Protein backbone atom coordinates (compact mmCIF):
# COMPACT_ATOMS: atom_id res chain seq x y z
CA UNK A 1 0.00 0.00 0.00
CA UNK A 2 1.46 3.38 -0.98
CA UNK A 3 0.84 6.56 0.96
CA UNK A 4 -1.93 7.77 -1.38
CA UNK A 5 -3.88 4.57 -0.78
CA UNK A 6 -3.29 4.90 2.95
CA UNK A 7 -4.60 8.46 2.84
CA UNK A 8 -7.65 7.39 0.84
CA UNK A 9 -8.41 4.68 3.36
CA UNK A 10 -8.29 7.27 6.15
CA UNK A 11 -10.51 9.73 4.25
CA UNK A 12 -13.04 7.07 3.26
CA UNK A 13 -13.61 5.82 6.77
CA UNK A 14 -14.01 9.35 8.11
CA UNK A 15 -16.32 10.46 5.30
CA UNK A 16 -18.43 7.30 5.49
CA UNK A 17 -18.79 7.59 9.28
CA UNK A 18 -19.95 11.19 8.82
CA UNK A 19 -22.41 10.38 6.06
CA UNK A 20 -24.01 7.43 7.84
CA UNK A 21 -24.26 9.03 11.30
CA UNK A 22 -25.58 12.11 9.50
CA UNK A 23 -28.34 10.04 7.96
CA UNK A 24 -29.13 8.40 11.31
CA UNK A 25 -29.26 11.83 13.01
CA UNK A 26 -31.67 13.05 10.34
CA UNK A 27 -34.07 10.24 11.26
CA UNK A 28 -34.92 12.25 14.41
CA UNK A 29 -36.27 15.01 12.19
CA UNK A 30 -39.88 15.43 13.31
CA UNK A 31 -39.56 12.81 16.06
CA UNK A 32 -37.35 14.45 18.69
CA UNK A 33 -38.71 14.29 22.24
CA UNK A 34 -38.81 18.10 22.38
CA UNK A 35 -38.61 20.70 19.61
CA UNK A 36 -35.09 21.86 20.56
CA UNK A 37 -33.80 18.29 20.33
CA UNK A 38 -35.49 17.75 17.00
CA UNK A 39 -33.64 20.85 15.76
CA UNK A 40 -30.37 19.80 17.39
CA UNK A 41 -30.23 16.38 15.75
CA UNK A 42 -31.29 17.83 12.40
CA UNK A 43 -28.58 20.52 12.66
CA UNK A 44 -25.96 17.95 13.54
CA UNK A 45 -27.11 15.83 10.61
CA UNK A 46 -26.57 18.82 8.34
CA UNK A 47 -23.09 19.43 9.77
CA UNK A 48 -22.09 15.77 9.31
CA UNK A 49 -23.42 15.57 5.76
CA UNK A 50 -21.62 18.80 4.85
CA UNK A 51 -18.39 17.55 6.37
CA UNK A 52 -18.65 14.23 4.55
CA UNK A 53 -19.12 16.06 1.25
CA UNK A 54 -15.88 18.01 1.77
CA UNK A 55 -14.02 14.80 2.63
CA UNK A 56 -15.40 13.12 -0.51
CA UNK A 57 -14.19 16.19 -2.44
CA UNK A 58 -10.68 15.56 -1.10
CA UNK A 59 -10.98 11.96 -2.33
CA UNK A 60 -12.13 13.29 -5.67
CA UNK A 61 -8.91 15.34 -5.88
CA UNK A 62 -7.01 12.10 -5.28
CA UNK A 63 -8.70 10.47 -8.27
CA UNK A 64 -11.89 8.98 -6.81
CA UNK A 65 -15.30 9.64 -8.36
CA UNK A 66 -17.22 12.82 -7.44
CA UNK A 67 -18.96 13.17 -4.07
CA UNK A 68 -22.50 12.28 -5.20
CA UNK A 69 -21.37 9.21 -7.12
CA UNK A 70 -19.31 7.98 -4.18
CA UNK A 71 -22.06 8.69 -1.65
CA UNK A 72 -25.00 7.33 -3.63
CA UNK A 73 -23.80 4.48 -5.83
CA UNK A 74 -21.85 2.18 -3.56
CA UNK A 75 -23.27 -0.89 -1.88
CA UNK A 76 -22.72 -1.78 1.78
CA UNK A 77 -19.52 -3.86 1.28
CA UNK A 78 -17.87 -0.83 -0.34
CA UNK A 79 -18.46 1.36 2.71
CA UNK A 80 -15.82 1.87 5.40
CA UNK A 81 -18.01 3.12 8.25
CA UNK A 82 -17.88 1.62 11.73
CA UNK A 83 -20.73 -0.54 13.03
CA UNK A 84 -21.51 2.06 15.70
CA UNK A 85 -22.88 4.56 13.17
CA UNK A 86 -24.95 1.97 11.29
CA UNK A 87 -27.08 0.86 14.21
CA UNK A 88 -30.71 2.03 14.12
CA UNK A 89 -31.53 5.13 16.19
CA UNK A 90 -33.24 3.04 18.88
CA UNK A 91 -34.58 5.05 21.82
CA UNK A 92 -33.40 8.54 22.60
CA UNK A 93 -31.13 7.13 25.31
CA UNK A 94 -29.19 5.08 22.75
CA UNK A 95 -29.00 7.91 20.21
CA UNK A 96 -27.62 10.25 22.89
CA UNK A 97 -25.03 7.76 24.12
CA UNK A 98 -23.92 7.01 20.56
CA UNK A 99 -23.79 10.75 19.82
CA UNK A 100 -21.61 11.23 22.93
CA UNK A 101 -19.21 8.35 22.18
CA UNK A 102 -18.96 9.15 18.47
CA UNK A 103 -18.62 12.91 18.67
CA UNK A 104 -15.89 12.95 21.30
CA UNK A 105 -13.93 10.58 19.02
CA UNK A 106 -14.54 12.90 16.05
CA UNK A 107 -13.57 15.92 18.07
CA UNK A 108 -10.25 14.38 19.07
CA UNK A 109 -9.66 13.03 15.56
CA UNK A 110 -10.09 16.47 14.02
CA UNK A 111 -8.00 18.04 16.75
CA UNK A 112 -5.15 15.66 15.87
CA UNK A 113 -5.64 16.23 12.13
CA UNK A 114 -5.38 20.01 12.47
CA UNK A 115 -1.61 19.51 12.33
CA UNK A 116 -1.67 16.79 9.65
CA UNK A 117 1.20 16.95 7.15
CA UNK A 118 -1.46 16.56 4.44
CA UNK A 119 -2.47 20.22 4.18
CA UNK A 120 -5.90 19.88 2.52
CA UNK A 121 -6.96 17.57 5.36
CA UNK A 122 -5.47 19.85 8.03
CA UNK A 123 -7.47 22.76 6.58
CA UNK A 124 -10.85 21.02 6.72
CA UNK A 125 -10.03 19.51 10.13
CA UNK A 126 -9.62 23.02 11.56
CA UNK A 127 -13.06 23.93 10.28
CA UNK A 128 -14.77 20.71 11.41
CA UNK A 129 -13.15 20.90 14.84
CA UNK A 130 -14.95 24.16 15.64
CA UNK A 131 -18.26 22.68 14.53
CA UNK A 132 -17.99 19.36 16.32
CA UNK A 133 -17.16 21.19 19.54
CA UNK A 134 -20.85 22.13 19.67
CA UNK A 135 -21.84 18.50 19.14
CA UNK A 136 -19.75 17.38 22.11
CA UNK A 137 -21.17 20.14 24.31
CA UNK A 138 -24.68 19.10 23.37
CA UNK A 139 -23.96 15.42 24.00
CA UNK A 140 -22.29 16.01 27.33
CA UNK A 141 -25.09 18.27 28.58
CA UNK A 142 -27.72 15.61 27.95
CA UNK A 143 -25.70 12.64 29.14
CA UNK A 144 -24.99 14.52 32.36
CA UNK A 145 -28.61 15.57 32.87
CA UNK A 146 -30.08 12.15 32.21
CA UNK A 147 -27.32 10.38 34.14
CA UNK A 148 -28.34 12.50 37.13
CA UNK A 149 -32.08 12.60 36.33
CA UNK A 150 -33.77 9.78 38.21
CA UNK A 151 -33.43 6.03 38.53
CA UNK A 152 -35.24 5.40 35.26
CA UNK A 153 -33.22 7.87 33.17
CA UNK A 154 -29.94 6.73 34.70
CA UNK A 155 -30.89 3.09 34.13
CA UNK A 156 -31.72 3.69 30.47
CA UNK A 157 -28.49 5.58 29.86
CA UNK A 158 -26.46 2.87 31.60
CA UNK A 159 -28.11 0.12 29.58
CA UNK A 160 -27.40 1.98 26.34
CA UNK A 161 -23.81 2.63 27.37
CA UNK A 162 -23.30 -1.06 28.12
CA UNK A 163 -24.70 -1.96 24.72
CA UNK A 164 -22.81 0.72 22.75
CA UNK A 165 -19.41 0.40 24.41
CA UNK A 166 -17.87 -2.41 22.32
CA UNK A 167 -19.27 -0.86 19.15
CA UNK A 168 -17.65 2.43 20.14
CA UNK A 169 -14.31 0.70 20.67
CA UNK A 170 -14.78 -0.64 17.13
CA UNK A 171 -14.41 2.90 15.76
CA UNK A 172 -10.71 2.57 16.42
CA UNK A 173 -10.16 -0.51 14.27
CA UNK A 174 -6.56 -0.20 13.05
CA UNK A 175 -6.15 0.44 9.33
CA UNK A 176 -3.77 -1.46 7.02
CA UNK A 177 -1.19 1.34 6.98
CA UNK A 178 -1.20 2.86 10.46
CA UNK A 179 2.58 3.09 10.66
CA UNK A 180 2.88 4.83 7.33
CA UNK A 181 0.32 7.48 8.34
CA UNK A 182 2.06 7.97 11.68
CA UNK A 183 5.57 8.12 10.20
CA UNK A 184 4.53 10.64 7.58
CA UNK A 185 2.76 12.78 10.21
CA UNK A 186 -0.54 12.48 8.38
CA UNK A 187 -2.42 11.02 11.37
CA UNK A 188 -1.56 9.93 14.91
CA UNK A 189 -3.07 6.47 14.36
CA UNK A 190 -6.14 4.72 15.78
CA UNK A 191 -4.41 3.34 18.86
CA UNK A 192 -3.24 6.76 20.02
CA UNK A 193 -6.64 8.25 19.22
CA UNK A 194 -8.43 5.60 21.27
CA UNK A 195 -6.12 6.30 24.24
CA UNK A 196 -6.94 10.04 24.07
CA UNK A 197 -10.65 9.25 23.74
CA UNK A 198 -10.67 6.99 26.80
CA UNK A 199 -8.90 9.72 28.77
CA UNK A 200 -11.67 12.16 27.90
CA UNK A 201 -14.88 10.10 27.91
CA UNK A 202 -14.30 7.96 31.02
CA UNK A 203 -14.15 10.89 33.51
CA UNK A 204 -17.13 12.59 31.83
CA UNK A 205 -19.26 9.43 31.96
CA UNK A 206 -18.30 8.86 35.60
CA UNK A 207 -19.24 12.45 36.39
CA UNK A 208 -22.61 11.67 34.81
CA UNK A 209 -23.15 8.84 37.32
CA UNK A 210 -22.56 6.14 34.72
CA UNK A 211 -20.37 3.07 35.12
CA UNK A 212 -17.82 2.10 32.47
CA UNK A 213 -18.07 -1.60 31.54
CA UNK A 214 -15.40 -3.73 33.24
CA UNK A 215 -12.19 -3.47 31.24
CA UNK A 216 -11.63 -7.24 31.17
CA UNK A 217 -14.90 -7.59 29.24
CA UNK A 218 -14.07 -5.07 26.50
CA UNK A 219 -14.37 -6.69 23.06
CA UNK A 220 -14.15 -4.12 20.22
CA UNK A 221 -16.50 -4.91 17.34
CA UNK A 222 -14.42 -4.59 14.19
CA UNK A 223 -15.22 -5.22 10.53
CA UNK A 224 -16.78 -1.99 9.31
CA UNK A 225 -13.52 -0.55 8.01
CA UNK A 226 -13.04 -3.55 5.72
CA UNK A 227 -16.58 -3.66 4.38
CA UNK A 228 -18.07 -6.25 6.75
CA UNK A 229 -21.18 -4.55 8.05
CA UNK A 230 -24.23 -5.17 10.19
CA UNK A 231 -27.51 -6.03 8.47
CA UNK A 232 -28.65 -2.45 9.20
CA UNK A 233 -26.43 -0.69 6.66
CA UNK A 234 -27.90 -1.84 3.34
CA UNK A 235 -31.51 -0.85 4.19
CA UNK A 236 -30.19 2.57 5.27
CA UNK A 237 -28.34 2.97 1.96
CA UNK A 238 -31.40 1.88 -0.01
CA UNK A 239 -33.49 4.51 1.73
CA UNK A 240 -30.84 7.24 1.44
CA UNK A 241 -30.35 6.67 -2.29
CA UNK A 242 -34.00 6.19 -3.21
CA UNK A 243 -34.39 9.52 -5.03
CA UNK A 244 -30.96 9.29 -6.65
CA UNK A 245 -31.76 5.80 -7.93
CA UNK A 246 -34.97 6.99 -9.55
CA UNK A 247 -33.34 10.04 -11.15
CA UNK A 248 -29.56 10.56 -10.77
CA UNK A 249 -29.88 14.06 -12.28
CA UNK A 250 -32.51 15.21 -9.73
CA UNK A 251 -31.61 18.56 -8.21
CA UNK A 252 -33.32 20.97 -5.85
Amino acid sequence: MNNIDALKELLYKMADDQLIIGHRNSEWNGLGPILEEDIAFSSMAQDKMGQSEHLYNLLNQLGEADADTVAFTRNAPQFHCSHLVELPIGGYDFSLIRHFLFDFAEYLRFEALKTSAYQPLAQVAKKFFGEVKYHTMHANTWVYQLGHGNEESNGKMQESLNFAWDYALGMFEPGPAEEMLINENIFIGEEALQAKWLEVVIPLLEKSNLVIPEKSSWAPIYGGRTGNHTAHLQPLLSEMTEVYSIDPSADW
Partner: protein
Amino acid sequence: MNITPAFIRNELKQVKDPEIPTISIVDLGIVTGIEIGEHNTVHVTLTPTFAGCPALRMMEDMVKEHLGKIENLGEITVKTSFETTWTTDLISDEGHAAIKQHGLAPPMRNCAHISMEILEATSCPYCDSNDTKMKSPFGPTLCRSLHYCNNCKQAFEGFKPV
Protein backbone atom coordinates in the same frame (compact mmCIF):
# COMPACT_ATOMS: atom_id res chain seq x y z
CA MET B 1 -11.16 52.05 -15.89
CA ASN B 2 -8.60 50.57 -13.52
CA ILE B 3 -10.18 47.70 -11.61
CA THR B 4 -8.64 47.13 -8.16
CA PRO B 5 -9.32 44.52 -5.45
CA ALA B 6 -10.57 47.38 -3.25
CA PHE B 7 -13.13 48.30 -5.91
CA ILE B 8 -14.36 44.70 -6.10
CA ARG B 9 -14.45 44.41 -2.30
CA ASN B 10 -16.57 47.54 -2.14
CA GLU B 11 -18.94 46.11 -4.77
CA LEU B 12 -19.25 42.86 -2.81
CA LYS B 13 -20.57 44.87 0.15
CA GLN B 14 -23.81 44.89 -1.80
CA VAL B 15 -24.00 41.08 -1.79
CA LYS B 16 -25.88 40.05 1.34
CA ASP B 17 -26.04 36.80 3.27
CA PRO B 18 -29.24 35.11 2.00
CA GLU B 19 -30.17 34.03 5.54
CA ILE B 20 -29.26 37.31 7.31
CA PRO B 21 -30.01 39.95 4.67
CA THR B 22 -28.67 42.85 6.77
CA ILE B 23 -25.05 41.65 6.59
CA SER B 24 -22.83 41.73 3.52
CA ILE B 25 -20.56 38.82 2.70
CA VAL B 26 -17.60 41.19 3.14
CA ASP B 27 -18.61 42.10 6.69
CA LEU B 28 -19.33 38.44 7.37
CA GLY B 29 -15.64 37.86 6.65
CA ILE B 30 -16.02 35.10 4.07
CA VAL B 31 -14.35 36.94 1.17
CA THR B 32 -10.77 35.77 1.67
CA GLY B 33 -9.24 36.59 -1.69
CA ILE B 34 -9.73 38.94 -4.66
CA GLU B 35 -7.34 38.70 -7.60
CA ILE B 36 -7.49 40.84 -10.71
CA GLY B 37 -5.88 39.30 -13.79
CA GLU B 38 -5.18 40.41 -17.34
CA HIS B 39 -8.14 41.96 -19.17
CA ASN B 40 -9.75 42.63 -15.78
CA THR B 41 -10.59 39.02 -15.05
CA VAL B 42 -11.70 38.67 -11.44
CA HIS B 43 -11.11 35.68 -9.20
CA VAL B 44 -12.89 35.71 -5.83
CA THR B 45 -12.17 33.20 -3.06
CA LEU B 46 -14.78 32.50 -0.38
CA THR B 47 -14.37 30.44 2.79
CA PRO B 48 -17.31 28.47 4.23
CA THR B 49 -18.85 29.59 7.50
CA PHE B 50 -20.04 26.06 8.26
CA ALA B 51 -19.09 22.99 6.22
CA GLY B 52 -22.75 22.07 5.76
CA CYS B 53 -24.03 25.58 5.04
CA PRO B 54 -26.46 25.32 2.11
CA ALA B 55 -26.14 29.06 1.41
CA LEU B 56 -22.56 28.67 0.25
CA ARG B 57 -23.25 27.76 -3.35
CA MET B 58 -25.98 30.37 -3.47
CA MET B 59 -23.48 33.01 -2.32
CA GLU B 60 -21.00 31.93 -5.02
CA ASP B 61 -23.72 32.48 -7.61
CA MET B 62 -24.71 35.82 -6.07
CA VAL B 63 -21.10 37.03 -6.30
CA LYS B 64 -20.92 36.01 -9.96
CA GLU B 65 -24.27 37.60 -10.70
CA HIS B 66 -23.46 40.90 -9.00
CA LEU B 67 -20.01 41.30 -10.57
CA GLY B 68 -21.45 40.21 -13.91
CA LYS B 69 -23.50 43.41 -13.99
CA ILE B 70 -20.41 45.63 -13.83
CA GLU B 71 -19.10 46.85 -17.15
CA ASN B 72 -15.50 46.35 -18.25
CA LEU B 73 -14.91 43.23 -16.18
CA GLY B 74 -13.43 40.14 -17.79
CA GLU B 75 -14.26 36.59 -16.84
CA ILE B 76 -15.42 36.14 -13.24
CA THR B 77 -14.57 33.02 -11.29
CA VAL B 78 -15.53 32.19 -7.73
CA LYS B 79 -13.93 29.41 -5.71
CA THR B 80 -14.55 28.10 -2.20
CA SER B 81 -11.46 27.21 -0.21
CA PHE B 82 -10.69 26.14 3.36
CA GLU B 83 -7.23 27.74 3.17
CA THR B 84 -8.36 30.51 5.49
CA THR B 85 -10.41 29.01 8.33
CA TRP B 86 -13.47 31.16 8.93
CA THR B 87 -14.19 32.07 12.54
CA THR B 88 -16.73 34.54 13.88
CA ASP B 89 -13.80 36.81 14.77
CA LEU B 90 -13.60 37.61 11.04
CA ILE B 91 -16.97 39.40 11.25
CA SER B 92 -16.39 43.18 11.17
CA ASP B 93 -17.79 45.67 13.69
CA GLU B 94 -20.20 46.80 11.01
CA GLY B 95 -21.17 43.14 10.62
CA HIS B 96 -21.90 42.85 14.35
CA ALA B 97 -24.23 45.85 14.10
CA ALA B 98 -25.95 44.28 11.07
CA ILE B 99 -26.49 40.99 12.90
CA LYS B 100 -28.04 42.82 15.84
CA GLN B 101 -30.22 44.83 13.47
CA HIS B 102 -31.60 41.52 12.19
CA GLY B 103 -32.60 40.65 15.77
CA LEU B 104 -29.79 38.20 16.48
CA ALA B 105 -27.24 38.41 19.29
CA PRO B 106 -23.80 38.97 17.70
CA PRO B 107 -21.16 36.33 18.51
CA MET B 108 -18.74 37.00 21.35
CA ARG B 109 -15.20 37.76 20.24
CA ASN B 110 -12.13 35.59 20.84
CA CYS B 111 -14.06 32.42 21.55
CA ALA B 112 -11.39 29.88 20.67
CA HIS B 113 -12.21 28.06 23.92
CA ILE B 114 -15.96 28.13 23.70
CA SER B 115 -17.96 26.40 26.44
CA MET B 116 -21.57 26.13 27.55
CA GLU B 117 -20.80 28.65 30.32
CA ILE B 118 -19.59 31.22 27.80
CA LEU B 119 -22.69 30.73 25.65
CA GLU B 120 -24.94 31.19 28.68
CA ALA B 121 -23.64 34.76 28.93
CA THR B 122 -25.03 35.87 25.54
CA SER B 123 -26.62 39.30 25.88
CA CYS B 124 -30.13 39.97 24.63
CA PRO B 125 -30.22 41.79 21.26
CA TYR B 126 -33.46 43.54 22.26
CA CYS B 127 -32.75 44.92 25.75
CA ASP B 128 -28.98 44.24 26.16
CA SER B 129 -29.59 42.36 29.42
CA ASN B 130 -27.11 39.64 30.37
CA ASP B 131 -29.76 37.83 32.39
CA THR B 132 -30.41 35.27 29.66
CA LYS B 133 -30.60 31.50 29.39
CA MET B 134 -29.41 29.35 26.52
CA LYS B 135 -32.12 26.90 25.46
CA SER B 136 -30.07 25.04 22.86
CA PRO B 137 -26.75 25.43 21.05
CA PHE B 138 -28.60 24.53 17.81
CA GLY B 139 -31.06 26.82 16.08
CA PRO B 140 -32.95 27.16 12.78
CA THR B 141 -29.71 27.49 10.81
CA LEU B 142 -26.28 26.00 11.53
CA CYS B 143 -24.87 29.35 12.68
CA ARG B 144 -27.55 30.09 15.31
CA SER B 145 -28.27 29.12 18.91
CA LEU B 146 -31.53 29.53 20.88
CA HIS B 147 -31.79 31.75 23.97
CA TYR B 148 -34.35 33.30 26.30
CA CYS B 149 -34.11 36.70 27.99
CA ASN B 150 -35.30 36.70 31.61
CA ASN B 151 -35.40 40.50 31.63
CA CYS B 152 -37.63 41.32 28.65
CA LYS B 153 -39.19 37.81 28.53
CA GLN B 154 -38.30 37.43 24.90
CA ALA B 155 -36.97 34.37 23.09
CA PHE B 156 -34.09 35.26 20.78
CA GLU B 157 -31.44 33.68 18.60
CA GLY B 158 -27.71 34.17 18.79
CA PHE B 159 -25.03 33.95 16.11
CA LYS B 160 -22.86 31.13 17.42
CA PRO B 161 -19.22 31.92 18.06
CA VAL B 162 -16.92 29.46 16.29
